[in-house]
């Protein structure tokens, strides 16, 4: 087909669409909404995995937890010195962290320590600041484990790259942490190991298990894997719902396409009678289907992009970030996976176009006179 012939077909296609604009517009809106839903799940899932990857890239090479009766228990200080001697381990550090339920607002905070904070000072994530309506310089009144009032002066708001993880954080000095929770002085929550050669992580984890049989070493790779599967699982729920929507839509598209109206059949008969080839008719209908589906795809994808990256995350946010107790304002960094966009394009555009073409082809190969007479 020459370029000029293609241009004429495209001209006719656009004229044809404009003639039935009401019907095409309603189809376009339904179609674009479907793409919006699908693209939202995809973009959000992508963004969450990307975000988790960013956060965990700064995670320690190996975390060592102590287990007691199958549950996590405090790690004695003595373990720290035992692990320091392991070949390949460049640094061993004890961590203190825990959870605090703030009954005043009904939210759970993740409490961590920062040695740079002076006694009585604290730093909070943006989620905590939001629910407690606090800013730098304000006082945050908490209740310590023994039931005493425990005031902290906010000296810093945490604004890291990922609010998804930091929103519910409450950070205080180590001494304050031990006093607040009545945490034993000779223990840590867990230990973190820095390992010189990343290839040796598995070997060192094995050595840790042999040296301290009541511990559980967790590597960064394992953490990444569990985060990834968590997001994939949540995204999967969304996909199951949306596959149902897609199937419903395809059924509608097929219904519509399999029964060409008498007017459309007559039109195809006329075109054939005045010298249009079957290929011309199919080309015109293909162009019509592509114009509708690609326009719907562009609008739907753009709407999803704006909702996810510049809006509040859309309808699917609660589903995908469900583990967070204190819902953060999630503003993921725009990130697009070409493969996933291509998949979405194929899933949404291809079936519709084919479903439209099959009945047109059936009519277009018949005698024009028979088609015109219906």
């Amino acid at each position: 087909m020459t370029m000029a012939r293609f241009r004429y077909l495209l001209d006719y296609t656009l004229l044809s669409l404009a003639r039935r604009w009401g019907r095409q517009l309603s189809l376009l809106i339904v179609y674009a909404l479907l793409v919006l839903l699908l693209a939202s799940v995809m973009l959000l899932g992508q963004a969450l995995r990307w975000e988790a990857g960013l956060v965990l890239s700064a995670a320690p090479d190996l975390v060592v937890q102590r287990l007691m009766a199958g549950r996590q228990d405090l790690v004695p200080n003595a373990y720290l010195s035992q692990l320091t001697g392991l070949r390949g381990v460049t640094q061993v550090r004890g961590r203190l962290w825990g959870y605090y339920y703030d009954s005043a607002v009904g939210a759970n905070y993740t409490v961590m320590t920062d040695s740079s904070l002076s006694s009585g000072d604290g730093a909070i994530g943006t989620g905590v600041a939001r629910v407690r309506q606090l800013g730098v310089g304000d006082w945050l009144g908490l209740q310590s484990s023994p039931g005493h009032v425990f005031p902290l002066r906010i000296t810093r708001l945490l604004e890291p790259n990922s609010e998804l993880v930091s929103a519910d954080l409450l950070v205080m000095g180590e001494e304050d942490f031990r006093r607040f929770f009545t945490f034993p002085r000779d223990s840590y929550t867990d230990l973190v190991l820095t390992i010189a050669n990343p290839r040796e992580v598995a070997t060192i984890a094995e050595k840790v298990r042999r040296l301290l049989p009541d511990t559980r070493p967790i590597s960064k790779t394992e953490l990444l894997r569990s985060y990834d599967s968590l997001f994939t699982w949540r995204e999967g729920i969304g996909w199951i719902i949306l596959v149902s929507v897609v199937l419903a839509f395809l059924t509608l598209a097929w219904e519509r396409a399999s029964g060409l109206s008498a007017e459309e059949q007559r039109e195809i008969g006329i075109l054939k009678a005045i010298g249009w080839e079957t290929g011309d008719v199919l080309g015109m209908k293909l162009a019509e289907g592509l114009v509708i589906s690609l326009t719907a795809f562009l609008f739907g994808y753009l709407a999803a992009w704006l909702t996810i990256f510049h809006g509040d995350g859309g309808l699917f946010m609660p589903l995908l970030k469900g583990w967070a107790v204190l819902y953060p304002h999630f503003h993921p960094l725009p990130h697009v996976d070409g493969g996933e966009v291509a998949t979405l394009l194929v899933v949404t555009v291809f079936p519709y176009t084919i479903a439209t073409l099959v009945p047109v082809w059936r009519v277009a190969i018949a005698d024009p006179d028979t088609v015109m007479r219906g």
Partner: protein
Amino acid sequence: MIRLWDVHKTFHAGQVNELWAIRGVELHLPPRQFTILRGPSGSGKTTLLTLIGGLIRPSRGRIVVADRQVSSLPERFLTQMRRTTFGFVFQQFNLIRGLSVLDNVMLPAYPLAPPHRELMDRAHRLLARFSLTARANARVEWLSGGEAQRTALCRALINDPPVIIADEPTANLDQALSRELMILLRELKAEGRTVVVSSHDPLVWESSVVDRWVTLRDGRIVEQS
């Protein structure tokens, strides 16, 4: 120009509603002649026209137009013939609703993809010739019967075909418009085109432009002159 040998056409063959529309038609229509197919309703006039024009294929027999056997041409070549050899004017005009007069007229030329300017000039010349210039951008559903008929004629002529086939062209026109149409058809014949018209309108039969009359009954030719 047009020859038919023992042409038969059966619809719904082998079914209870089997219909023999054309039975053993033998016909020779020389070039540049004006031929009228006449006969009562259901006699097979329209079926014979659509067979000649390659809109349907015969169940049996041979049809040759301009030295090409249209009855056995592959679909692709048959379409080419419909585009370049024949210009059709249908009884119900068969214009595409929602499009303008100009767009309808240009449609048969799209697959040939002539330069756009050239196609527009050709279409506008035809519209001027058939007094439709003022209606060029009007949607075809807004046209009067006469205007729609002339638009259909313009469309039939856009690719300058040597054969014009018109099925009951005056059926939806009053007498004055019918006379006007016959004048236009006379001009087409004068240009050297072969014109084949089906009609049971005496005004058409009695026109001096007609060279031949072919009378059909029950799918058979019962008389020709």
